[in-house]
């Protein structure tokens, strides 16, 4: 259900900023390590968007990876999941990034 809360938060934030606009595309960033499933957000966005300024809008989602910093060998690598394993085999890894949920931008219809 937290994807529903995420979708509702996206819609509320956009509605607050541009209540009179007709939004056609929403660019959303969902980090791969955020614990949020993009497909479920899409599903909820469609339902929760009915009757709001984003009704019928397309949801364009990008999924940035996180970065793992290995304490054993000192290298940094791309972390695509929360259980990141360094290429050297170590699990002593600190992960940064990849957990953010951000509304990057919206595209607004030109006729309003």
């Amino acid at each position: 259900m937290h994807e529903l809360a995420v979708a509702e938060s996206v819609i509320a934030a956009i509605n607050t900023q541009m209540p009179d606009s007709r939004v056609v595309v929403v660019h959303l960033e969902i980090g791969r390590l955020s614990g949020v499933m993009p497909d479920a957000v899409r599903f909820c966005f469609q339902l929760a968007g009915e009757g709001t300024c984003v009704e019928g809008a397309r949801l364009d989602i990008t999924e940035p990876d996180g970065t793992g910093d290995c304490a054993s060998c000192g290298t940094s690598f791309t972390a695509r999941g929360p259980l990141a394993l360094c290429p050297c085999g170590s699990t002593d890894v600190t992960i940064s990034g990849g957990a953010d949920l951000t509304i990057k931008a919206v595209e607004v219809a030109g006729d309003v």
Partner: protein
Amino acid sequence: MCETCGCEGDTARLTTLPAPGHGHGHGHGHVVTLDQKVLARNDDLAGRNRAWLGERGIVALNMMSSPGSGKTTLLERTVADLSPDRPISVIEGDQETLLDAARLTAAGARTVQVNTGAGCHLDASMVAEALTALAPPDGSTVFIENVGNLVCPALFDLGERARVVLVSVTEGADKPLKYPHMFRGADILLLNKTDLLPHVDFDTEAFQDATHRLSPGLRILPISATNGDGLEAWYDWLADL
């Protein structure tokens, strides 16, 4: 849990979507850059809760676990043991019923029950409303017993001082690996129902390894809320907050 949107861990859920883009057409207008955190409103409210609590010297703890791992039993015992010296109140989150609030009231805590209905987590606005109703005294402790769920509550800051995660030995040693977000965000991990260890197949070492793979250095306290084993360490930890 959460059949509507499928937030059950990282396993893929197939969702058949209606055809996109009907209605408005695409990209004929202009782009407005927002760069805004999706949960900014919740985080803002959580920040206000934290400031409100901080001004009054109130320590709030966000208690999270699966259903049935012993949060309410632990709180009953904690209230009974500590409340003579330290005012304790409880915000009790459940989808339905007043059962847990009745238990904690009987144990001696002022309690407000939040029923989330279809919702599977508490958020900062629910906690703000509950704090207003509860009016905890200055310098007191507030336990926020979240809805039993190892997935959704991990995402929502409530304004707490610390996040306490419980696991019971009947749940299996692989819980941290299955629900990594919850364990990564924990400030302390309580391993409950240790009195049942002789009767269940629970690999304590594997549990510790899994936990520290996600959160190196996370403190694990073995306890039994039923017979009281390990609770002194829990009370010491609370006293140091």
